[in-house]
């Protein structure tokens, strides 16, 4: 019944949202794909659907969309393939700079820079899209698979990213974000939420990355003070791939074998995840390790709540200098949760071992660590953050392209 009502509401919303002259522009793979597709993206008008046929589109330059209210729809992430192996220019495969955009049902392969970047966009929905560097982990791969930045109202739903040399799904300097139902594998970071205000990351599979899910806040960029992020109900398993990020990038400092990692940031909740087989730690909470002159920046992790996660084995092969000695001192293995001791109000109520390294300052050598158990159950204040709510039209877009048998049962 609820779905029926929803379906009726949905029809109404779709009629209201579709402008009178909205049309479907068909684009097919084959000769001259670059010009045909890019021209369609330029000539599209609000409400239009750009429908991509099945096949491999051989692209020689980056693509871009700068028209509001456009849908790019392929026939499936294994059927409609935008192949950027021969790309000669641009910093990404597809750049979106307009609002109210829906991307679904296609793949981006081997883009020279990032896969899909959306910048300064409001209401972007990316669903059932695959971004892949087909040669596997390699520092020559592009940095980010799905890359919304300086955007707001972002829904990343059911995407797959393989091989990003920085983060598979990276949301930066944005607000009001949901990342869900996605698979990230063979990336340096599976999912990274960086310098964002308000994000829910749930029901994702992060496996065989260097680090599974990261929540970071960094200095010297326009939007700082990352906060209000919930990471819950994810399966974060076996993220033990050697770090292949080009040096200099902050993810280059992520130890292989990190499950969930929180760096600086404020008000982050990590709960009800299954986190298993991460050789450094299942959960790490640390401060920003580098020097900065940025006076507005807070390098510490503050108000972090970790609870109700289920842990498998962890800490059996820590990937940081001195980690093996520390593990030996602790009886052969680190605890599943490691906190560097530089933050404030770090609450951990998971029923597994946790240690604080009691560092005076983040990023100092482990020789300065004075590890001790970190019991803080008594201080646990419970869940505080509210769910992220996106404009309803964004969810409706996903429903609008489902076939009859994909729709939820009545």
């Amino acid at each position, binding site marked *: 019944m609820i779905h029926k009502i929803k379906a009726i509401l949905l029809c109404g919303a779709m009629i209201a949202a579709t402008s009178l002259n909205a049309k479907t522009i068909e684009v097919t793979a084959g000769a001259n794909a670059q010009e045909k597709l890019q021209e369609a993206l330029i000539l599209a008008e609000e409400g239009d659907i750009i429908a991509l046929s099945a096949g491999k589109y051989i692209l020689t330059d980056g693509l871009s969309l700068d028209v509001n209210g456009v849908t790019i729809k392929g026939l499936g992430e294994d059927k409609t393939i935008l192949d950027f192996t021969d790309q*000669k220019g*641009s910093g990404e495969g597809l750049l979106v700079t307009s609002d109210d955009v829906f991307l679904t049902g296609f793949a981006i392969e081997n883009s020279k820079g990032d896969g899909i970047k959306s910048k300064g966009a409001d209401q972007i929905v990316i669903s059932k899209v695959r971004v892949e560097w087909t040669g596997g982990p390699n520092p020559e791969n592009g*940095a980010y698979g799905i890359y919304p930045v300086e955007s707001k109202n972002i829904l990343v739903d059911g995407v797959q990213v393989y091989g990003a040399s920085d983060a598979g799904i990276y949301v930066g300097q944005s607000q009001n974000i949901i990342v869900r139902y996605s698979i990230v594998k063979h990336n340096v970071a599976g999912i990274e939420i960086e310098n964002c205000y308000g994000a829910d990351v749930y029901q994702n599979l992060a496996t065989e990355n260097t680090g599974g899910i990261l929540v970071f806040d960094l200095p*010297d*960029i326009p939007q700082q003070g990352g906060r209000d992020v919930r990471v819950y109900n994810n399966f974060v398993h076996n993220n033990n791939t050697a770090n292949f990020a080009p040096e200099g990038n902050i993810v280059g400092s992520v130890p292989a074998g990190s499950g969930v990692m929180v760096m600086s940031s404020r008000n982050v909740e990590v709960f009800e995840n299954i986190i298993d087989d991460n050789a450094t730690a299942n959960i790490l909470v640390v401060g920003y390790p580098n020097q900065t002159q940025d006076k507005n920046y807070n390098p510490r992790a503050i108000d972090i709540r970790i609870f109700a996660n289920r842990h498998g084995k962890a800490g059996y092969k820590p990937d940081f200098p001195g980690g093996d000695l520390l593990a030996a001192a602790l009886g052969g293995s680190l605890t599943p949760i490691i906190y560097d001791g530089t933050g404030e109000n770090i609450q951990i109520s998971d029923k597994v071992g946790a240690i604080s390294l009691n560092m005076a300052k983040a990023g100092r050598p482990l020789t300065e660590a004075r590890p001790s158990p970190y019991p803080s159950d008594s201080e646990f204040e419970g869940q505080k953050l509210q769910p992220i709510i996106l404009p309803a039209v964004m969810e409706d877009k996903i429903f609008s392209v489902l076939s009859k048998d994909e729709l939820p049962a009545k």
Partner: protein
Amino acid sequence: MIRKPAYLWAHITTITSLLIGIVGLTKPSNEAILLAKYPKSLSEYGFHDRGKKGFTPHKSLIAYDLKTALFSDHSEKFRYIYVPDGQVASVSDNGVIDFPVGSAIIKNFGYFQGNKMRLIETRLLLRRENEWLALPYVWNETQDDAVLKLAGARLSVNFTDPNGIKRTTDYAVPNKNQCKECHGVNDGISNKVMPIGPKIRNLAQSSIERLWAANVLQPHGAPTNASWDKGDNGIERNARAYLDINCAHCHNARGSASNSGLFLDYGQSTPVTYGIYKRPVAAGRGSGGLEFAIKPGDADNSIIIHRMKSNDAGVAMPQIGRAIVDDEGVALVSQWINQIAVKK
């Protein structure tokens, strides 16, 4: 007998174009500049004399030059400003020129083949009612007109560079969106296309005087930039001027690269903001394994130099509009970085 009509027709067109030249029928078209959606060919604007090969400008177009030009693969550039008859562009305190509606900025790109100019493309900026519109046109074989290429183009071009070296390049004509990637300025509400070159601080003094003489530019007292290749202002000023015109159109707080936090506009005074010990944010393999955008005293280990020296998509900066390394630019910026004092 069969050839006669063609012969006659040739005469008729010559006479017509002569007549047009005399009575001034070919003149910039308000319709094309202001109203038509995307005019298909350059000739529709009436900016150039279609009867001649190449771009012979209408007399109302005023040529201008920049103190420091964007590097565009060693192409020659010919720039013109068109302001509708009787109107004047005003100048704000910071040297931004506010062109009246109906104005146009025309930039032709080409290479000398021997001593003959072969035009490749013309980029137009049209000042419409509420916005600037950027459109790219590619010149035809006969060199009498250029056609709209909304999606851009890749053209194989042979030329001889200023050092006498013969080169072939995969010249990239930007698509309409790429025009905006560099020309876009976020005013807090939306991202709008704006001119980059024709600002008082960038214009050559002779060009400013020419615009004054033609009564299309309001007199002003706005400050001006250095001319990097004239070597008259000290290395730091020259290098900063070079970065300003080549990078700051994206690398500023309201540009396409705003998220990087690396702002290379001439006015930046905070060292980390213009790159000194600035760590990469989202550079990926663009970082080249290096720690800082600018590492004082060490150009070879500065990300800016690494990216200026690359032609590899995903690494190369600027990301669009260049397929060849600007060796002189690299040398200048390296020289500056190498003389910056190292922080203890």
